[in-house]
């Protein structure tokens, strides 16, 4: 082969100018994606740094063991923290069985037809209803109408309202987890002479459980920050005691935070920041638990 032929081949394989331009476009797009991806992280980081600087110094024993006070150095979040824990526990107890049962019905039992379609569409719509609307519903139904049962403006009324709020999200998450259980498992179970209930009980639910739990925790971590519906049903903004039972009056962390930030003194702003830290820690631990559960029980079929 002659030298000329070699040169010709090299010329064809070297980067043509057009390709340089195309590569540059690709690179620009990659950077744009990186910037948008980073935006969320940066915002969270700024938020965290800001509240930690403002509030970390106020996280002491008094803060966790005292009720709020008009004197900032004596104020604490005990009632709000207890209220949040009460509320979340009740919400979990109410919404988890209802949500899972609804999802099992829709996925395993309901005949595909107009009824199922109507229920499904309504659940999807309910998931988008503003939370204040649930507050109005809770006020009318749980506080006023069923007041004798729930104790009126009680932690139970709040829990029922918040449960309604997160049920659609929980049902949809549980449905997805149930749908992810392969049909081959159901076939195997039915093929052995198992009834529908035995199949659901022994195979579908255990295999869907990690997904259901993840969805539940994420739904709860959304609920933990809800304020509007609770204000609507009359959760108190100033409360000096912890709830003793589900029929007691209560307040929650977001309402306490709102109460503090709306005061003029700087010290209350710091208290609010400290309470935000507590709320964020609760929320992030719940999310971490969800991720841990997902990884721990992730199935390979």
């Amino acid at each position, binding site marked *: 082969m002659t030298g000329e032929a070699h040169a010709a081949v090299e010329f064809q394989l070297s980067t043509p100018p057009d390709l340089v331009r195309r590569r540059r476009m690709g690179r620009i797009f990659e950077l744009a994606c990186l910037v948008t991806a980073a935006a969320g992280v940066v915002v969270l980081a700024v938020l965290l740094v800001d509240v930690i600087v403002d509030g970390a110094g106020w996280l002491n024993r008094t803060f966790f063991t005292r009720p709020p006070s008009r004197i900032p150095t004596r104020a604490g979040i005990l009632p709000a923290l207890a209220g949040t824990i009460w509320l979340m526990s009740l919400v979990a107890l109410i919404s988890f069985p209802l949500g899972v049962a609804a999802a099992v019905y829709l996925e395993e039992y309901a*005949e*595909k037809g107009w009824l199922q379609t109507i229920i499904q569409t309504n659940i999807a719509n309910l998931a988008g209803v503003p939370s204040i609307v649930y507050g109005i519903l809770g006020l009318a139904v749980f506080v006023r109408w069923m007041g004798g049962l729930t104790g009126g403006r009680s932690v139970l009324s709040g829990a029922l309202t918040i449960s309604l709020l997160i049920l659609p999200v929980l049902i949809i998450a549980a449905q997805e987890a149930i749908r992810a259980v*392969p049909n*081959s*498992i*159901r*076939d*195997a*179970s*039915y*093929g*052995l*002479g*198992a*009834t529908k209930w*035995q199949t659901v009980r*022994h*195979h579908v639910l255990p*295999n869907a459980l990690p997904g259901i739990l993840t969805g539940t925790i994420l739904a709860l971590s959304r609920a933990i920050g809800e304020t509007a519906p609770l204000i609507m049903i009359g959760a108190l903004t100033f409360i000096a005691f912890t709830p003793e039972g589900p029929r007691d009056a209560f307040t929650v962390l977001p309402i306490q935070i709102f109460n503090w930030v709306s005061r003029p003194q700087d010290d209350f702003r710091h208290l609010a920041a400290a309470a935000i830290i507590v709320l964020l820690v609760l929320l992030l631990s719940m999310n971490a638990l969800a991720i841990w559960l997902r990884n721990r029980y992730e*199935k*390979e*079929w």
Partner: protein
Amino acid sequence: MSTIRVTAGGDAALETRDVSVFYGSNEAIKTVSFEIPRNKVVALIGPSGCGKSTLLRVFNRMNDLVPTARVTGEVLFQGEDLYADHVDPVEVRRRIGMVFQKPNPFPKSIYDNVAFGPKINGTGGDIDAIVEQSLQQAALWDEVKDRLSASALELSGGQQQRLCIARALAVTPEILLMDEPASALDPIATAKIEELIHQLVADYTIVIVTHNMQQAARVSDYTAYLYLGELIEYDDTNTIFTAPTEKHTEDYVTGRFG
């Protein structure tokens, strides 16, 4: 098409009479009538979409689980129509076991996979003994006896399929339906499954769907050839593969199409 009968001393484990299966308005099986002799292996062959698997699922009422499916005609099992009103499909599936195309062990231990059937059916008796016996029947016991509590998903594909067979045997069915049980396996694992079929036929009637004509020739006593939902020909396997009556059958088994 008239009833095609193969009689083994008149002793049929299953008999279909004018069975048709509809998916919506689509007729997937068209008035099939034939007999499956007791303690024999019957192979269902035919090109993809001919209805082999649908017909197999008629026998243990798995089609009931498909909302749009509808079965007409009679399927006689021990003199009773499986589709009669008083027949409970759950009981049918306990008496007529099934092994699926893709090995589908439960994501549980080897022991729990086999024990599940006897437990839910409340068979009673010694579950440990049933598990051991079933695994032995499926020629898997020696390979897993030291790790019964290990996950079934750790087994190889061939072992998983034999586990699925053991699981089906644990509820003591009378008939075993196999839907392409070796199609997802390598040749060595396939050979093991086929050997197992030879052993099991002493105690069970086996109906096997297969894509693999050599496999049908090797394992079965009788072969049914289906095409577009119709039973074209049914005879003993030797005849089907060497001297079929129908031209269509001959074209298929000699590999001229399909």
